């Protein structure tokens, strides 16, 4: 099938699929960031039990395969009387995993901070809250821009999991599977989706680099 033929037949579907992928990516990344921040707060809290729970969260969700998690959410949880829509299941799966990596990157960002600066902040009379909000968080966030940019791309790639459940509209990967099982879409259908993924990744990377260059801390 040629490009024109494919686009005339599936053009709308591609646009819908692209938006589905973008929507999933944006929602998942936002949720992952919130969870990632919460888990990081737990991991740096002075309360040992919270630290342990935070660490366990990261160990589980950075190591579980996306497919394994999605299958549990879709097929296993109903046995516990927990039934979510396919979309919700996909969204949860592609949020929980990046959240673990988000926390890892934020922890790494915190670890870049020079302990001496924390002491200096205390020495001029800053309270704990001020030290955290004026010295620790701004520096940790700046150090996390590039890793979080890569995480956004990784989150987008993870949303391809959506192709494993029936979604309407489909995501970019699900659409390729659909076209190729219903018609002979051939290589073109694959290339269009791949190009859309790549273009998104490149744009995200460029924006991330630009932000990083602006806020990066000289050492």
């Amino acid at each position, binding site marked *: 099938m040629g490009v024109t033929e494919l686009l005339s037949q599936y053009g709308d579907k591609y646009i819908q699929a692209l938006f589905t992928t973008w929507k999933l990516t944006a929602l998942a990344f936002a949720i992952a960031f919130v969870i990632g921040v919460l888990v990081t707060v737990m991991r740096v809290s002075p309360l040992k039990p919270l630290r342990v729970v935070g660490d366990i969260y990261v160990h589980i969700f950075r190591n579980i395969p996306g497919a394994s998690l999605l299958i549990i959410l879709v097929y296993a949880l109903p046995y516990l009387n927990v039934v979510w829509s396919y979309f919700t299941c996909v969204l949860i799966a592609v949020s929980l995993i990046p959240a673990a990596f988000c926390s890892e990157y934020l922890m790494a960002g915190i670890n870049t901070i*020079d302990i*001496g*600066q924390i*002491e*200096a*902040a*205390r*020495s*001029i*009379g*800053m*309270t704990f809250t*001020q030290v955290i909000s*004026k*010295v620790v968080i*701004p*520096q940790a966030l*700046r150090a996390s821009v590039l890793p979080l940019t890569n995480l956004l791309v990784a989150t987008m790639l993870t949303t391809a999991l959506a192709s494993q459940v029936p979604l309407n509209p489909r995501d970019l990967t699900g659409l390729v599977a659909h076209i190729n099982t219903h018609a002979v879409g051939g290589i073109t259908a694959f290339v269009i989706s791949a190009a859309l993924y790549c273009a998104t990744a490149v744009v995200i990377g460029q924006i991330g680099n630009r932000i990083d260059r602006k806020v990066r*801390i*000289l*050492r």
Partner: protein
Amino acid sequence: MEKQSKPNTPEQTPVIELRHVDKHYGQLHVLKDINLSVKKGEVVVIIGPSGSGKSTLCRTINRMETINSGEILIDGTAIPQEGKELARLRAQVGMVFQSFNLFAHKTILDNVTLGPTDVLHVPKKEAREEAIKLLKRVGVDTQAAKLPAQLSGGQQQRVAIARSLAMHPKAILFDEPTSALDPEMIGEVLDVMTELAKEGMTMVVVTHEMNFARRVADRVIFMDGGAIIEENTPEEFFTHPNTQRAQDFLNSIKNH
């Protein structure tokens, strides 16, 4: 709660006072029954071999390090153990660190204004104006818009001094302020410190710079093994110290 000492008249109250201060690191007895009092305007220089506890002593004064027993008073007030009270007291005592410790994400100017605006709640404009004056005083006003990493070590340390001064502290603690500097930059920092001493700033200085101690100190404290071994005027101390250990120490650095 630690008991508060009765307020005295300013002439009598030492700005810094340590009474029977002891500190242990596990088995190690790092500070042994330290008694020290620093009067207003006094410059006390603490010297001693590395590992003698001089840096630890300096850091206990604003509770960067905790102590196991004894009392530390700032202007007659026992130093609180935690929370806002501790922060408030620290705001009155400046500290200059060996490794400068400027806030890496803030400009030089913002490094100096952060304390006044966020801790003392001075209006931004006022804080800026004063910061610029202070930066001029330590000779780095032309660098105000730069980031710490763009400055030399000597310049960074002078900014750190300005950052302390901006809080209008009752005293400034200097914890080996020139030990991390290249030799050619030590002078510029010591000059600023000498200037401060002349203007009547109360200072506690931990240093290896014997010439500075001799010229600027009102009093020299010699520490070894976690204890104060000798307390003397600089002339006495450097010409004929009272203790053999101080003599040995002076000999050892002369031979270097």
